[in-house]
């Protein structure tokens, strides 16, 4: 992965967040939540700044980031697509829906499309099992999704983007 040069103010944002938690090493997970909220993802360079801010090793920060699936080291797409792979969704055909998304977008789980518009990842039960299979695009929830609908869902966002009236995801 090419090295990213963090902007001065990004570094400041991270430092401020560390300070907010008293630069306390025990607050690492809370700090990571907050930084990811702000920056969208946690690349190695960001982890270095956090390690310094909390007076701990980069190895420890990296260990925690990679342990928890909620934290990601790659940027999400503008419209992150999350497919529920909980059991209820699985038995109602989530796997076929997922493979259709992968096929349509030509990316794998955990990747983003080259134009940065979409990324695919899997979730475990979003608590809407009555609507299984469930797909989230940003905050929007699609229920009872059939593989044949996948194309339409993607088109909805592509179109939204062309006409410049991007829904806030």
């Amino acid at each position, binding site marked *: 992965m090419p090295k990213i040069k963090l902007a001065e103010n990004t570094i400041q944002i991270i430092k401020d967040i560390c300070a907010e938690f008293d630069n306390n*090493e*025990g*607050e*690492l*997970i*809370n700090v*990571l*939540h907050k930084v990811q909220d702000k920056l969208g993802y946690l690349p190695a360079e960001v982890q270095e700044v956090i390690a310094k801010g909390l007076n701990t090793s980069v190895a420890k920060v990296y*260990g*925690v980031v990679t*342990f*928890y*699936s*909620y*934290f990601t080291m790659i940027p999400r797409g503008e419209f992150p697509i999350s497919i529920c*792979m*909980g*059991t*209820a*969704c*699985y*038995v*109602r055909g989530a796997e*076929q829906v997922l*493979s*259709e998304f992968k*096929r349509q977008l030509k990316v794998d789980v955990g990747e983003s499309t080259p134009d940065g518009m979409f990324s695919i990842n899997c*979730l*475990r*039960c*979003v*608590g*809407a*099992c*009555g*609507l*299984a299979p*469930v797909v989230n695009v940003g905050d929007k*929830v699609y*229920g009872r999704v*059939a*593989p*044949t609908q*996948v*194309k339409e869902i993607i088109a909805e966002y592509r179109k939204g983007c062309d006409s410049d009236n991007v829904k806030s995801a």
Partner: protein
Amino acid sequence: MTDYRMHILICGGTGCKASESNEIKEKFNHFISEFDLEDEVQVLFTGCFGFCEKGPIIKVLPDNTFYVSVAAKDIEEIVKEHILKGRPVKRLLYKEPVSGEVISESQDMDFYKKQIRIALRNCGFINPENIEEYISRDGYMALGKCLSEYTPEETTNIIKDSGLRGRGGGGFPTGLKWEITRKVESDQKYVVCNADEGDPGAFMDRSILEGDPHSVIEAMAICGYCIGADTGLVYIRAEYPLAIERLKTAIKQAEEYGLLGDKILGADFNFKIELRYGAGAFVCGEETALIHSMEGLRGEPTVKPPFPSVSGYMEKPTNVNNVETFANIPVIINKGAAWFSKIGTDKSKGTKVFALAGKINNVGLIEVPMGTTLREVIYDIGGGIKDGKEFKAVQTGGPSGGCLTKDFLDTPIDYENLLSAGSMMGSGGMIVMDEDDCMVSIAKFYLEFTLEESCGKCNPCRIGNKRLFEILDKVTEGKGTLEDIDKLKVLSDVIKDTSLCGLGQSSPNPVLSTIANFEDEYLSHVEEGKCPAGQCKSLVRYDILEDVCNGCTLCFRNCPVGAITGERRTPHFIDQSLCIKCGVCYDKCKFNAITVN
């Protein structure tokens, strides 16, 4: 709830919010102000009614009318007909599928008849964002009673006598756990609420927190009083934004009312509650891992003893209980141990909440007394199998549990019975499967989950589960051998015996239970290269029957890869080299012209 002539309760659970319930609320507000009813009618969100299958759900009080599958476009009619003229909108009422009877009040529905709601007592009745409503239903009365009438020891004894056992899966007697923690001497102790709900396909704890957060807060304070702790921590999944929001609101309100903080209700008792966020790791539901995660570390389990009751968060005595366990506490204090212990079976008292899902007509959240049979849950409450298909198996206990066949349908549900049947209670996920579900694939699905979620500390769990997965994968590809099935069994036993925590110790259960109950299905894959359920892609082939196909072109238009060709009104044909075996054509064809082999 006073002053208003009518209340409209809209389900504000995650499931219903996903399908328009926000828009519905806006529409109600719009029409209510249009007809100048603001002073007469109150519209609010409440917790999950449980009947998620027919969401969004709306309840109108005091008439107690229960509307199902409501859409935003129906609201105008509800306001004009029901609210203004007192005539319920018949077409939105629930219709019993078998008898065809139209039912307007929820307690008359088969879905609710066999349920007893203790942990879910307030879900769907109150506005979870208003502490007054909780208080009006005896909320915080139990805390008051404990602080003014009972010593910590007496309170603990009530919980002990009630027979309540942990609802997080293990079933450890709750009163006993409190007593152990109480007896450990320490300057600082903690109460922890485990709201990590990691079982994929389960949403009990989330619904309680979304629908009735105060019941958990009150119970944590009672627990703090019993064990001598002044701090409570809720470890909650970051993936549950709505539950987090509601919990934060509830804590703030409780503080304002002096129900959290210093000198609660004038007694010599201080208690505060803070939130800690999980970050998507199933193993963090295990209590020692959870504690490490709260300390900012990787969530790896450690050897017990020491148990958290002795040395937990920050190496201080820590009492960890599940959300649902806590939700039972205030009712037990109010109604007494004897009342509670009358419900249930000999060794399992009270009720259990289940998230009923899968191939069942009434997907939803239910609470039944212990001792209810699986048949009652699946057929009477759940309304039977979807699309008239045949029941095949029911999975309980999530990734740690097992699949039970129809031979177990009359088993009364309790901790012991489910264990001896080869599954377990778990936290309450209950997934129903039909004839189209391949049991080898289900085992593989769970293994893939544990594989991702293993913390990697023990070799048998980290590597053994990977091998199990690979063998299962081989079987679903039709490349397995009889020897592989034996290997699965041996390896499973080794993993169970040699893993450190409950995750590894139970991860082979889905494999063992499917082999025990559906060995013939494994054998078909291995010996005949066939998947009887038609689910394993490598083993299925879709064909069009020339003499049945009438050339309606429906499959041609729906095939996502254009593998189907044919002229209108002439038999169609599937190009096997292009077919991705998605099964869309099979589902679409109205003439049964497509076969799966």
